[in-house]
């Protein structure tokens, strides 16, 4: 499922170097890409830590009670997010199938679509119609609980990207 250990370590090094480098926004959509699976995990992990620390966003995501999975088709990364049972956290998450819960909703898309979606530049529903995003849910109510929350992640994501991963910023 995940990239090989060597690739991951190399990718982590690239991501760390990118994080140290001065922030420069990408000039076009083509360049606004994740450099590796490790960087994707790093960015998503940073986003989820921000969400978990935000009482408003974190509690909304937890109270939606929709364990969901995002499968990145080109970088072969799987992210599971669900409500946390730990009272000190709103949400918990795990990469690459290590979650001990089953998702109620699964989204499948490539890393470019993830980046566009989380920056509010991809209409998820239209992307589903165009088969650019795969969607499945065990219960229609899961979609109704999850989709309105998607937009609220955007400002946290844009902040993470602006501060640490400027090459992912969409022009």
């Amino acid at each position, binding site marked *: 499922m995940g990239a090989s250990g060597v690739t991951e370590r190399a990718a982590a090094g690239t991501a760390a170097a990118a994080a140290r480098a001065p922030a420069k926004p990408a000039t076009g959509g083509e360049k606004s890409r994740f450099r590796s699976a490790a960087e994707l995990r790093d960015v998503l992990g940073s986003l989820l830590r921000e969400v978990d620390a935000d009482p408003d966003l974190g509690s909304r995501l937890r109270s939606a009670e929709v364990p969901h999975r995002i499968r990145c088709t080109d970088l072969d990364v799987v992210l599971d997010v669900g409500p946390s049972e730990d009272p000190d956290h709103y949400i918990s998450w795990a990469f690459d199938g290590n979650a001990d819960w089953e998702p109620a909703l699964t989204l499948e898309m490539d890393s470019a679509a993830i980046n566009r979606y989380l920056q509010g530049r991809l209409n*998820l529903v*239209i992307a589903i119609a165009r088969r650019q995003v795969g969607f499945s849910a065990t219960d229609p109510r899961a979609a109704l609980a999850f989709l309105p929350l998607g937009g609220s992640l955007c400002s946290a994501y844009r902040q993470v990207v602006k501060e640490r991963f400027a090459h992912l910023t969409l022009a």
Partner: protein
Amino acid sequence: MPPDQPISLNEASRRSGVPATTLKRWAEEKIIPVRRGRWTATAAAQARVVARMRERGYPLDRLKEAGKEGKLAFGYTEEVFGRDDATVGYEDAAAETGLEPELIERLMVLLGTPAHRERQLTRDDLDALHHFSRVLASGFPLVAFLQLVRVYAQSLRRVADAEVRLFHLYVHEPLIRDGVPELEMAEEMGELAGDMLPIATPIFEYLHRRYLRFFIEQDVVGHMESEFGIESGELGRINVTVCFIDLTGFTRYTEEEGDEEALDLIERFVETVESTLPREATIVKTIGDEVMVVSPDPASLTEWAVGFLGLFQERPQPRVGLHCGYAVYRDGDYFGTDVNLAHRVVTRALGGEVLATDSVIRQFGESEFIEAEPIGEVELKGFPRAIPLFVLRSRRA
């Protein structure tokens, strides 16, 4: 003046419209809460409600019970809104504002004047009429202005209704359930209302600016498209794609899951429609489980409809009817044969199905992502000729 500030018995009588002797008797019989014989604005407000309820035939012992339970504790509104005594008639208002008395009457009907204040205007009414007069003097057409006033009134009536109902359900009722003494309850609600209601105005202003900016941008885009050759209709008629979407099997769902669960589903459904629509599309209205959406762009609305239905793989499933045509825009709503046709189309769709007329297919053209399967010409109630309909779905990868 704070609502718990003492006032004289005569003042309480004037405010409540109840004779002083009756007020004294109601206080002695503890129908109105009066601490150590000291009347307050809150107590006078409650007396006014008791008097109204008496006029409607409610016995005093029931009103006393209701008062004890805090059900009449609404005196907090006295402080929030202040007194609103009638001051002038329409003729005087016309002379002061320069508006015709007939126009004032028409405006007040649009605003929904309370019946007991017929043809009497308060200072607030008069201030509003001055604003109206200035708008008309600036050259805004009367026909458009009257529509705008109606939309303002309808929208804000809904807002005020929701505020009062939610305050009642989530503040007043819990206090009643907790058995909070009525004076304490009135004070507590007064404080909360006093803190909360003044915040509503800046929130309205913020939202108004925000939506105004959005719709001005939309309007500019619309003009640009007209410039590029998209035909425009007559004055007041707009070329739009109309979409109706509702939940099939909702009545059965309500029976099986109960009213609360069904209401929760509807709220989430409408919220999801709203949060996922393409930027240029707008919800016009919701009627129960049905949502009406319009958009200047048939392609994005059609793709949205197909994608949205893809979210629901199990019951209750939505269905969609789409049609492109001209609609008359009036009072914030869209009317006309083409709107009616779109509505007829959705009633012919099955759960999980996007059904569209040939007008959508013509506007939409050949799509890389959506395929249209013709299902033939279908008779629709109220339309003299059969309409070619198509089922739309995503193209296979």
